[in-house]
């Protein structure tokens, strides 16, 4: 699975996710990536793209959950990501990237690693795996 989340200089957020799914999956299986609010979500608060075990992400409604705890619990972006990864995944393994309309970037994952990269207008740039 691959994904990208962006907030532009006008504060507009967007998210996109694309995947081939699981190795040896059944024909016709649908995972989390195409499901809005589960694998992909964007609103006027943040943009989120998820990856990992689709069945766990679906049950946790993961992407929308980040926006929801920001809106209703007033959490910041990274706090919201940490909360969702720690509290909403049960035994599942997954990760996600997110941006906020304030120009922040965040990620969280409970897997061995996640291929990821970030950049912000003030010059921050990071690429990581583990």
């Amino acid at each position, binding site marked *: 699975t691959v994904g990208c989340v962006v907030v532009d200089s006008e504060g507009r957020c967007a998210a996109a996710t694309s995947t081939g*799914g699981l190795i040896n999956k059944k024909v016709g299986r649908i995972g989390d990536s195409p499901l809005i609010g589960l694998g992909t979500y964007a609103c006027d608060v943040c943009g989120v793209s998820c990856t990992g075990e689709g069945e766990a992400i679906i049950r946790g409604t993961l992407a929308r959950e980040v926006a929801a705890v920001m809106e209703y619990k007033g959490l910041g972006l990274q706090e919201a990501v940490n909360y969702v990864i720690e509290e909403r995944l049960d035994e599942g393994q997954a990760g996600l990237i997110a941006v906020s309309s304030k120009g922040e970037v965040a990620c969280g994952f409970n897997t061995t690693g996640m291929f990821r990269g970030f950049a912000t207008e003030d010059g921050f740039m990071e690429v990581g795996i583990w």
Partner: protein
Amino acid sequence: MGGWAIAVHGGAGVDPDLPLHRQDDAKKFLTRCLDLGIHALRSNHSAIDVVELVVRELENDPLFNSGRGSALTEDGTVEMEASIMDGPKRRCGAVSGLVTVKNPISLARLVMDKSPHSYLAFSGAEKFARQQGVELVSNDYFITEGNVELLQLAKEANGIWLDRRVPIETCCASVETPPLQMNGVPISVYTPE
């Protein structure tokens, strides 16, 4: 208001024993995708255009599990899916079950912009793709040798795998066939849904 920001991912399924040169390849590719997005943002492209542009780049390279280089189904074929969402008006588009569309994310964008729906799947999505004139390729284009080998290993282990890691305990499966595994745990973990 803060400035622009961008994040990309290539999947959370990472082989713990990933060779260093493969790690370098992944980091170089992620950096290239970031540079593509940064250039577009500096040229004042909108967020929705930038996420589509970057995911197309990720789909075109076989390094990660999407587009070319997608994981294989139990039949050894590729079935792809994607979705895109624009925050300001929460517009969205999604596709599933694609077998010939070169860039699934761009078809998802067309579902959002050019159809009255949010989600098209399988033959309906392929028909919409032909109507919209997007680039189509044969299913073979998406299949890589590495993924054929991984599928073989998953079948021998009677497993469904999230990532390229080959769980050691299932590599030399014992004589009696173990219960169907999903990413190294019994499928029963997923029974709830």
